[in-house]
């Protein structure tokens, strides 16, 4: 596959992903609204979370810029490298929001979110497994695009674990 065809394929994949995200948001929200509603404290917290995620992304991208000038080669292709930076930024934002009570909005259904998170993780691991069976996960010792599916799957597992632990911590606090 030449570069332009691959780029087009990835761009279409991202657009489809965004459309799916909007549909999922509509299904996750109890009122059927695409937009999640947050209260004033949550909005302030989310602003801080975006700041941390922004600086995380900047630092990782700077690191990648610096290392790209040297001879060192990462065992991942370029797309995976930059995508991983985005995912790490998202994890920072989400984690901060989870631990500061700003992840779930006022109109979110936690149970529906849990179902979709599991489905998305399983779906991504399934794709990665399929591509691995076709020998497209690692080519010449370098991880290919299929690694992104594993990373996304892992991200949802990490979010799930964090939410579960936070739920236990919150239950303890409810008695106060």
């Amino acid at each position, binding site marked *: 596959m030449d570069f332009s065809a691959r780029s087009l394929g990835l761009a279409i994949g991202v657009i489809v992903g965004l459309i799916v995200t909007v549909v999922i948001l509509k299904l996750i929200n109890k009122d059927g609204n695409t937009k999640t509603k947050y*209260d*004033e*404290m*949550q909005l302030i917290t989310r602003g801080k979370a975006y700041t941390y995620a922004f600086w995380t992304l900047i630092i990782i991208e700077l690191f990648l810029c610096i290392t790209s000038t040297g001879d060192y080669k990462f065992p991942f292709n370029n797309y995976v490298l930059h995508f991983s930076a985005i995912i790490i930024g998202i994890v920072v934002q989400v984690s901060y929001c989870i631990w500061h009570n700003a992840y779930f909005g006022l109109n979110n259904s936690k149970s529906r979110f849990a179902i979709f998170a599991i489905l998305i993780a399983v779906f991504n691991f399934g794709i990665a497994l399929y591509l691995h069976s076709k020998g497209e996960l690692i080519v010449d010792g370098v991880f290919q695009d299929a690694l992104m599916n594993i990373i996304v799957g892992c991200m949802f597992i990490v979010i799930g674990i964090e939410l579960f632990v936070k739920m236990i911590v919150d239950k303890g606090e409810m008695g106060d």
Partner: protein
Amino acid sequence: MKNLKMKSARAAKDLSQEELAKICEVSRQTISAIEKGDYNPTINLCIAICKALDKTLDELFWVE
């Protein structure tokens, strides 16, 4: 500083944090943070809380 006046006003109305949060259209954690003194609410939220608890701003949020 903990907002004990708000906590006792809520208790007097026999409202849980969850119930007060629903009336004021905020999360339970936001009410909890206000009572603990971890968050300073905007004037709009202060008014919503006062209306829900039948109290004035002075009674709940004025610090001597």
